[in-house]
């Protein structure tokens, strides 16, 4: 909004003060401190000294690249499933069938429960002897005996993914549902008039039009998933044999469980760097895709 003066307008900066203050104190300063710590040998002891890049060197000399790869695998898998399930869910909940209001409410609880509580329940579900999945699996004859989902590397990895998907899907579903409802019904009617089937309309109209929403949601979801801590920590603490140790788990283990604050801080810095790179790359790709479509 232009006013009749050419001086710098301080008003918008004024508006940013509350948000900036909170963010500076609670996030920016601790982050700066974390970066500083990453160059020290800080640990339990009150004395610390600067060690240059040593923490980063030790970090990479260990199995860190493996952890990075696993983290991205975990994230891509989880976000991928969330997006697919969320899209399917949104399509289903968008169908004009009796009861859909109820269904829309019933989808929400995983988002609403405290994460820790949800994960307790899943921990119980994964139990091979008393849990529902193994129990029903045996009943139906799918499983020959009790199966411990958290006992093998692959099944534990997948189990943490499933739980993360369970917690993250409702939000994706609702977000995409909203995006779908934003599409003018005219478009569907026009396509229907031209003989397009439901599936065809979904492919050629709904999907392209909610693509921006999918793109934004998948980025946000990726960031959240990357940083998802409670789920893995409560279910497996990163085991078995590190099969579920992601960067954030590794960081927490190093910094908090093992009290190596310096090394932990270095890992935290790596997370921020990786996420920034990832987001930048993602934005670049999206805008390139958008441009390509425009040029078509």
């Amino acid at each position: 909004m232009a006013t009749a003066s050419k001086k710098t307008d301080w008003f918008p900066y004024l508006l940013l003060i509350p948000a900036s203050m909170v963010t500076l104190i609670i996030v920016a300063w601790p982050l700066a401190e974390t970066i500083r710590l990453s160059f020290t040998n800080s640990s339990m002891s009150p004395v610390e000294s600067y060690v240059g890049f040593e923490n980063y060197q030790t970090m990479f000399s260990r199995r860190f690249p493996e952890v990075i790869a696993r983290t991205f695998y975990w994230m891509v898998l989880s976000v991928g499933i969330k997006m697919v399930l969320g899209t399917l869910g949104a399509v289903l909940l968008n169908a004009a069938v009796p009861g859909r209001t109820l269904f829309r409410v019933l989808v929400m609880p995983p988002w609403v429960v405290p994460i820790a509580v949800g994960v307790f329940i899943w921990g119980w579900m994964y139990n091979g002897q008393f849990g529902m999945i193994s129990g029903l699996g045996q009943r139906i004859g799918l499983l020959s005996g009790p199966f411990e989902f958290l006992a093998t590397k692959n099944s534990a990895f997948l189990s943490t993914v499933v739980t993360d998907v369970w917690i993250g899907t409702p939000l994706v579903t609702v977000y995409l549902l909203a995006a779908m409802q934003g599409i003018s019904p005219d478009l569907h009617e026009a396509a229907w008039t031209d003989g397009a089937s439901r599936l065809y309309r979904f492919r050629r109209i709904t999907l392209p039009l909610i693509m921006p929403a999918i793109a934004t949601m998948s980025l946000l979801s990726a960031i959240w998933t990357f940083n998802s801590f409670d789920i893995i920590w409560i279910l497996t603490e990163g085991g078995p044999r590190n099969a579920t140790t992601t960067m954030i788990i590794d960081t927490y283990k190093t910094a908090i469980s093992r009290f190596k604050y310096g090394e932990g801080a270095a890992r935290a810095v790596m997370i921020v760097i990786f996420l920034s790179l990832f987001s930048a790359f993602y934005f670049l790709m999206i805008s390139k895709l958008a441009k390509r479509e425009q040029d078509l």
Partner: protein
Amino acid sequence: MINKYRWWEYVLIYTGIAMFLTFVLAPFVEAFVVSMRPLDALFSIPYRFITDEMSFDAYFTMWKSVPLLWRYMLNSFGIAAAVTALALLAIIPAAYAFARFEFKGRDTLLAAFLAVNMVSGAVLIIPLYKVMQQLGLLNTYFAMIAPGTAFVIPTGIWLLRSYLMRIPRELEEAALVDGAGRIYTLIRVIIPVALPGIMVVAIATFITAYAQQFLFALTFNSTNALNPLPVGLFQFFGRQDVVWNELMAASLVGILPVLIVYVFLQKYIVAGLTAGAVKE
């Protein structure tokens, strides 16, 4: 007509919804079943869904074994509400600034706010602890509220900003012509008009704040009476054995308040998100 389905389409849709809901709700069913069994009947093999000894006992005994349970629920609710209120105080003006004003460094600042998403509270815990200590906030509700607030602000700004951008600029110009100051305009015009969008942000913030209050509470608070529900629930993990039935009962009861809030407000969420979502 376009929404008329053939019988097999109904079958398909309802099957799909049933499968989807099964995935989503199975844990709650499991939790409920567990909460209904006496502790020693829990570990029965082979797995059975319904057994005779089921009862609601756990729902009564849990109040005794964790006497402060009601207090934890209240705390959770209160903390989430306070986070929501504070976050809105920060989000609304910031989102307004980003949505409406051109100023130097706007895009950089916005990106910086969004980047907060990339930092997780877990990795900042030590420096954050020092901050809380220096501010003298340890062992107060505020120690749980403040960090909770900071981490919901970015998403809130982002959501509300896209909503505000759809409010016609003329509304503010009209107020300006009528002589209203900018704060006056914000409070009397923009906020009421943006209420549906603010509602969405508020609900989303509240739920997030309710669902994610473990780590900060655990580290920054030592006063049992101030603990939120997730920390309180840990008391069902006795030293040797977990009181699973009461834990599940307490968990189910604990999510009830938010769920009720959600049921009543869900239509705003879908409606408000629609306005904001399509834009970006």
